[in-house]
């Protein structure tokens, strides 16, 4: 009798648990921080205690004598190569220190105790130099020069012009001009910084790292090491979070390599939490001057944006965030005339790196609060004004981003409808006039982000190799990195869907650069889209190979066959033609005709690099979101309690319901922190709150109810229609909260985080004058 295999429900859109979750819940997962290699040494860094100083001498003689100390690396005895986007950062500093993070020496020893002791005994003599901590101050002629070869302390600049803003300003009925001061926040990955370096006897380096871009990492690391990038093998053990912080090489990594080379033993270098706060990247603080005009009818006429980024002592990827910031400043809403100018300026502060949202958190805080203000000035409601300026399907932004769908307007409309926005908004405004300690607020913010990769490198591709074993299991070797975000689950799901096998029959291999094919890394909300397409296309190729073999064997034509439930079946009636595993063995053990199912795919998205004027459709797709915050404020203490965040986002297609919700909620928590509580306080270059007590990440009791509405508009280039989604949830909440705060108390804040003290000062300012 024929075996009938019923067509199973699609896996797309289902809640699929992450394959790495079971090991994580039982405490079995070995994170890089947990790893111990045979004969491994422990290493730490001697950092400076100055923010700007000439190094006169470094004396390691006493430290070397500490029992158990095996190697000490200093600028003098280590390779001289540089790291960083502008190659301006020597991993070990020999001539001068430029910020409080600066590395004087690396010390490797048998025990942590010995290393701690040795660190104390390293003597450094300095000649202090005047410091500069503000980007506009640092641009002045008489400012201290931080790098001799960087005149004017200028790091990277970005400039874009479109239309005629002077004319547009003259033609405007209203013009608003604002200044924003956007603060330092940091990733606070739960797994503190850690790296393990190990050389083999051929002189080739194996580096165990937390990196989220393993292939570029080799390229960026090699110049600091005096070895070829080809001689570096990158292994990525499980990491405790990344969020963009691992998109760069940081000095501690080459320092561990120098020590491993000297010691001829594996060296593990790791951070304390305090060090993690002081010496790992931050989001780029930005001072933004913005002017925006509109006609009486609400049509935006122009935007003029000038940004000063506090680059800190060295140039990391953080200095390139204007590339993304600019897309929102110029292209979020229809802006017919626009200029954007940014300067990243060296200061003696710790340097910023990349962080989820990559400049768009800052851009969105500015644009979304300004949109709110302009609506009010025009006498329009916040929804009407936004809809008036939302682009239509097929429009291109001034930088040539093609907006295929009308998702922005849809997001706004759905959000307003689901929350009864206008009614609540008006009621809260009216309530401001009445007495009462507690005020309710509702606010909306929107943004746009690349959702089909972002072509900032010459390739935005991902390689995938898919093989099938004799038992019907698929192994997917992908360049994409799993850093906790859940790409393994997504790839498992996409491959299972195509091959008709259970998700438990898919194995993902992706943590070894010696095995995996190239990928740009986890950034720019690109992995589900790019790696997902690569994996799916590989699965389609494998499927074709399998079905072709089945067709030959069964004399049923290939277009009438399908894979389902571990069988090759006839598509129309589900009758099993053969079991998949049996067929695979028959293909494999077919003597001269033997074939192994082993396919590869290199997926490069249909997008273009920007030209020198920053024009180019850099992503295959874009995504919009509208987030609405409902909150209450205690006007006496300034305490803010979030009730609910309603998030409408254009996601193309939900692949993994659990994964997408998790990315939304997690991003929102970080976005709430940006808006309300998180700030790395840096005074005169010194980090004042390097701990979780005073750097206030959001905790469980603060999380509001979250309601997500996904607009599924089936992106034609995405895997099963999916877009990348995971940065918008972090980008929008801060601005949404700021607008809700305004709705509650009638005060706008151009300097997040909106802390209770800032709220109270704004509300009771007269009493402050009296008291002081």
């Amino acid at each position, binding site marked *: 009798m024929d075996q009938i295999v019923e067509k199973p429900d699609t896996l797309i859109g289902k809640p699929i648990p992450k394959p790495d979750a079971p090991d994580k819940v039982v*405490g079995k997962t070995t994170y890089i921080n947990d790893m111990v290699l045979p004969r491994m040494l422990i290493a730490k860094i001697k950092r400076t205690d100055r923010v700007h100083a000439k190094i006169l001498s470094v004396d390691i003689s006493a430290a070397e004598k500490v029992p158990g100390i095996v190697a000490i690396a200093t600028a003098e005895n280590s390779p001289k190569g540089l790291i960083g986007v502008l190659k301006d950062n020597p991993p070990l500093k020999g001539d001068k220190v430029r910020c409080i993070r600066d590395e004087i020496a690396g010390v490797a020893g048998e025990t942590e105790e010995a290393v701690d002791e040795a660190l104390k005994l390293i003597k450094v003599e300095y000649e202090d130099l005047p410091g500069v901590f503000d980007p506009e101050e640092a641009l002045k002629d008489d400012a201290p020069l931080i790098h001799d070869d960087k005149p004017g302390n200028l790091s990277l600049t970005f400039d874009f012009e479109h239309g005629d803003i002077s004319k547009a300003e003259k033609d405007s009925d209203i013009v608003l001009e604002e200044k924003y001061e956007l603060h330092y926040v940091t990733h606070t990955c*739960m797994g503190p910084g850690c790296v393990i370096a190990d050389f083999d006897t051929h002189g080739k380096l194996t580096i165990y790292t937390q990196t989220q871009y393993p292939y570029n990492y080799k390229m960026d690391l090699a110049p600091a090491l005096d070895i070829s990038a080809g001689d570096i093998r990158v292994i990525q053990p*499980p990491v405790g*979070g990344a969020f963009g912080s691992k998109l760069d090489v940081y000095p501690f990594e080459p320092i561990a390599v120098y020590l491993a080379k000297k010691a001829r033993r594996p060296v593990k270098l790791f951070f*304390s939490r305090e060090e993690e706060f002081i010496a790992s990247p931050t989001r780029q603080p930005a001072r933004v001057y913005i002017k925006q005009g509109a006609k009486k009818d609400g049509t935006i006429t122009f935007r003029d944006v000038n940004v000063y980024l506090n680059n800190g002592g060295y140039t990391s990827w953080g200095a390139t965030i204007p590339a993304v910031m600019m897309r929102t400043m110029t292209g979020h809403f229809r802006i017919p005339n626009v200029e954007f100018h940014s300067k990243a300026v060296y200061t003696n502060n710790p340097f910023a790196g990349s962080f989820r949202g990559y400049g768009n958190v800052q851009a969105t805080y500015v644009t979304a609060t300004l949109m709110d203000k302009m609506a009010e000035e025009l006498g329009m409601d916040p929804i009407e004004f936004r809809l008036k300026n939302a682009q239509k399907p097929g429009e291109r932004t001034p930088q040539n981003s093609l907006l295929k769908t009308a998702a922005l307007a849809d997001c706004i409309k759905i959000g307003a409808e689901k929350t009864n926005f206008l009614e609540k908004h008006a009621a809260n405004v009216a309530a401001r006039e009445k007495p009462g300690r507690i005020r309710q607020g509702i606010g909306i913010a929107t943004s746009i982000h690349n959702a089909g990769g972002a072509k900032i490198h010459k390739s935005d591709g991902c390689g995938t190799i898919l093989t099938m074993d004799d038992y019907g299991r698929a192994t997917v070797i992908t360049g994409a990195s799993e850093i906790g975000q859940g790409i393994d689950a997504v790839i498992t799901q996409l491959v299972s869907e195509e091959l008709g096998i259970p998700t438990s029959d898919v194995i993902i291999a992706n943590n070894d650069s010696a095995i995996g094919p190239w990928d740009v890394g986890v950034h720019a909300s690109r992995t589900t889209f790019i790696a997902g397409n690569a994996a799916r296309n590989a699965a389609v190729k494998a499927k074709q190979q399998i079905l072709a073999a089945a067709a030959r064997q069964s004399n049923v034509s290939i277009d009438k066959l399908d894979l389902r439930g571990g069988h090759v079946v006839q598509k129309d009636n589900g009758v099993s033609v053969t079991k998949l595993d049996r067929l695979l063995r028959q293909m494999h053990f077919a003597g001269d005709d033997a074939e192994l199912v082993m396919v590869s795919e290199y997926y490069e998205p249909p997008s273009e690099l920007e030209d020198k004027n920053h024009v180019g459709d850099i992503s295959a797709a874009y995504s919009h979101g509208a987030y609405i915050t409902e909150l209450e404020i205690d006007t006496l203490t300034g305490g803010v309690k979030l009730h609910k965040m309603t998030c409408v986002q254009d996601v193309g297609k939900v692949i993994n319901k*659990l994964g997408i919700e*998790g990315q939304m909620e*997690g991003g929102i*928590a970080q976005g709430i922190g940006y808006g309300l509580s998180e700030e790395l306080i840096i005074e005169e270059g010194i980090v004042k709150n390097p701990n979780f007590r005073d750097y206030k990440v959001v905790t469980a009791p603060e999380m509001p109810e979250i309601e997500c509405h996904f607009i599924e508009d089936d992106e034609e280039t995405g895997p099963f229609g999916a877009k990348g989604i995971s940065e918008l949830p972090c980008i929008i909440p801060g601005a949404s909260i700021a607008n809700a705060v305004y709705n509650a108390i009638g005060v706008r804040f151009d300097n997040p985080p909106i802390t209770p003290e800032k709220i109270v000062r704004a509300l009771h300012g007269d009493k402050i004058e009296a008291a002081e």
Partner: protein
Amino acid sequence: MSAKVDITFTVNGAVKQVSVPANMSALDMLRDQLDLKGAKEACGEGECGACTIIIDDTSVCSCLMYAADCDGRTIETIEGVQTEDGLDPIQQAFVEHGAVQCGYCTPGMVMQAKHMLNKNPNPTEGEIQRGLEGNVCRCTGYRKIIDAVAEVARS
């Protein structure tokens, strides 16, 4: 080197005898001497809960507890939660609800959830949130963790 202290205690049902420096934390002892690396050191200051263990039916941050203070006591770590029958219901719920992303906070979160449910088998959502207030998660936004604990409480 600080003085060594000989201690005897029970961890995950097994009696252990170890000699620990007087200044060593329980976390370092578990990780470095007993090779129980499930509990994590994410802050070392009792501010994140990643090192949470249960000692004598009470959850504590093992990073702030002296190893010597374990003498004569009974400890449960994340490694002892799974049984031969499989995952503990809390662990199962964490998997099924997507309460795990990077997972670094997860062992501490599971131990704290277990302690909370031992003390209060029927918590409200607000009580779950309060119960987890000492455990920082940077990935999930807590909602799915709260959902997972709520489901275990319901069943």
